[in-house]
């Protein structure tokens, strides 16, 4: 298959596999840091958006479904980052 014949589905598939491989590399080599957390959160948002828009075809679908699904994949990556950033405050807030 030549590159010019790749369609949006094929490109999305290759992109998603590449991001996953990069994530695995980070898991094996990188030390814990807020920067790494931010990069991983961005990768979650990008992967989620790609799957929703191109595999689920939500980019042309009903606007409410689109908004709710896209929102989910903006809110949770953001929450992952914020709970890492404010972990001590979260621990205090949730101590019974």
């Amino acid at each position, binding site marked *: 298959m030549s590159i010019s014949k790749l369609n949006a589905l094929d490109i999305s598939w290759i992109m998603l596999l590449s991001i*996953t491989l990069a994530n695995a590399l980070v898991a094996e080599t990188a030390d814990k840091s807020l920067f790494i957390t931010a990069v991983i959160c961005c990768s979650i948002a990008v992967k989620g958006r790609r799957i929703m828009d191109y595999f689920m075809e939500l980019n042309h679908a009903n606007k409410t*479904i689109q908004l709710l699904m896209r929102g989910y994949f903006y809110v949770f990556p953001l929450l992952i980052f914020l709970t890492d950033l404010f972990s001590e405050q979260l621990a205090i807030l949730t101590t019974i």
Partner: protein
Amino acid sequence: MHITAENIFHLNGSGQVRNEPETRNKIPGNRAVWVGIFAELTEFALFFIVYFIAKAHYPEQFNQGPLQLNTLAGTLNTFALISSSYFVAKSLAAVRHNKPEQSIQWLWLAVLCGAIYLVIKVWEYHWNVDQGIKTNTNEFYTLYYYMTFNHLLHVGWASGSLIWAIFALKSGRYTQSNHLGLTAIACYWHMVDLAWVIIFPLLYVLR
């Protein structure tokens, strides 16, 4: 929109189709499957919130936990799920082009990926036990087993729905002009993949 033979729709790698795709400006599949999808995503959201709180309380366990897990197994499972989602999308594109045999072949590949996922997961659980990683080892591993086993169940029954769609295609119940059921099943399968997109970095990558 009024559809005429001259209408051509371009959609996400499906090439060009003359029939307006059922996902365009509509609820893909049917309302019922979206109630299910949002219910499932809410369930996973609760797991994620528990993860955030537990991580704040046990930072050392959540720092060391991912290091002991089998990253290769997690990565291969991600490959399997992403590939299966891609195959399901290709299957939907094929049925829109009135190629049911091709659609069935893509669905079998998706089912194969689902089976590979299940085999890897079972192997991973055995590997974990050999390393002394059990459900009650610590809070991180308890959450790991809760999340991954719950997700495994979803992959199991969603694979069943793919097999059901294969038989519906074979019997001619899903056709070029009538395949809303297949679209609904595809959306559910993509949701299972989406949940893993968050679970994989939470458990295997982030510390």
